[in-house]
Each structure stands twice: as C-alpha cells, then as structure tokens.
C-alpha cells in the first residue's frame, strides 16, 4: 500500500505535489492570519493597559472589549 501511495502508477510526483502545495498554502494562510490576529490582540491589550481607570471603566462597559481582554488572557 505504501508503495502504491508513493508510486501511483508513475503519477505520484504530480499528485503529491498538488496535495503538498494545497496543504502548504493552507498552513501559510493559517499562520499569516493567526499572526495578524495575535498582533492586533496584543496591541489592544497594550492600549487598554495605558488607559486611565476612568477610561478603562468606560471601555469595559462594552461587552466586546471585555471579551477581547478575556480571550487575550486565555490564549
């Protein structure tokens, strides 16, 4: 079976390179998107940390801001 998978009647180079390219593209896009997400999340946490207590309370009144902070501490 392993032989069949790596030979594929002489088409293995084509088939495996097509699948390899697809999976590498997936991995690349996932990594780029993840890095962008973490960068924005860290930026948010840093900015939030520099707010005065009054500003922080005002920001925390929005549920989405609380969610972002909670997610950032969980990750």
């Amino acid at each position, binding site marked *: *079976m392993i032989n069949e*998978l790596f030979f*594929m*009647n*002489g*088409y*293995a180079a*084509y*088939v495996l*390179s*097509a*699948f390899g*390219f*697809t999976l590498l*593209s*997936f991995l690349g*896009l*996932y990594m780029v*998107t*993840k890095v*962008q*997400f973490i960068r*924005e*999340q860290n*930026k*948010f946490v840093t*900015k*939030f940390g520099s*707010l005065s207590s009054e*500003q922080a309370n*005002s*920001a925390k009144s*929005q*549920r*989405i*801001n609380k*969610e*972002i902070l909670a*997610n950032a501490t969980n990750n």
Partner: protein
Amino acid sequence: MFKFLEPNKIFQITSKAPKYVLLLFIIVLSIGLVEALILSPEDYKQSDAVRIMYVHVPAAWISLGIFSSITLLSISGFIFKSKNFFLISKSLAPSGFVFNIIALVTGSIWGKPTWGTWWAWDARITSMLILALFYALYLISWRIYENEEKVFKISTFITILGIINVPIIKYSVDWWNTLHQPASINILSKSSIHTSMLYPLLIMTAAFALFSLLIFLMKYNTELIKIKNKGLDRL
C-alpha cells in the same frame, strides 16, 4: 434590520468558534485525504492522476462561491447601509484568493500528465486567472484606500465587474472548445461521476469549506479588534 449581525453581539460566538472549527477541519481533512489518496479508485483513462481532482475541484468551487458571496454582501452593504457586510466580505476574500491560486496551480500540475502542458490559454483556465486578478484588485483596494466610504465604493465596483466573469468561468467549457473537460457534476441533472469518486470529492469540499470558515472567523475577529483598537485611541 440585521441587528443580530452586530459585531458586539456576535463576537462572543466568533471569538470562540475558531478552535472548534479547526478541530472539525482536521478530522474532516484527515478522512478526506485517506479517501482521496488511498481508498478512491484510479480512473480508467487518467489512472492515479485523477486524484488531483480532489484538491483542484473543491478549490475552484469554493473560490467561485466566495467571490459570489463577496459581491452579494458588498451590494447588500450599500442597500442596507451596513458596514458589517463589508467587513464580512473583506474577511472572506483572503481564503477565496488562496483557493483560486490553489485551483490554478493544481490545475496546471494536472494539465502536464493529462494534456502534456503546464499551461494553455484555454477559456476556463484564462477566466480563472482573470478571477484571481479581480481577487487581487479587491484585496489591494482595501490596502491602499484609507477612506472608508471610498474603499466600500471601489471594492464593490471591483466585485460587480468581477462577477460578470463567474458565469463565463462556469459555462466556458460549454460555450467554447476547450482543453478543459465539461462539468462531471450537475445539481439539476444526472452527474457522470461515480459515487466512489463523488464521496471523497464531497468530503474534501467539506474540509475546504471548513478551512475557509476558519480563516474567515479569524480574519473577522482581527478586523473587529482593529476597529476596537481605533475606538480606544478616541477615548
């Protein structure tokens, strides 16, 4: 209208969903790969080269589906005056573009053993290349224009122009004599593909759809945090 789609309300779901979607994607992709590379039969004519279909076809389908969705959402954004529709469109585009590139590259790899060439200026292939250009223009428009109103208008204009190409891609194999084979799967009439190949194809399509959902969710969350970052600056 569409209040349930408000970012503040749905972030709770979209921020937690990616890890579950990722897990489901890995499971479905693993099953799909075993089916596509090992269990599905070889073709009587193309032999094992036919296995390229399991990545090429889902990638092409999803890139077309995403572009159509982007167009519909962008137009809806104007009709319903909802910024969120534009945000969803913007978040869908990267995976659509990557699927378009995958369809072109894997199609080219498939072309060599079956047609004897890596590339032909055939109607289907050329129209798919044009779609990739529209995707690129759409993504670039979001990068170069700072003004929100302007970017909404320009990106929608690009999608409206690009959507004209979608039926051309679909019917190019019927309208012109092309190297590319006609569709083997029809929703309205009988498909010419055997179920032993259809099921792996559908499993791989489900895996690809889950991957685009995963990227969409991550990108959408990033865009929402970006907006909130700007909001903190204004405090």
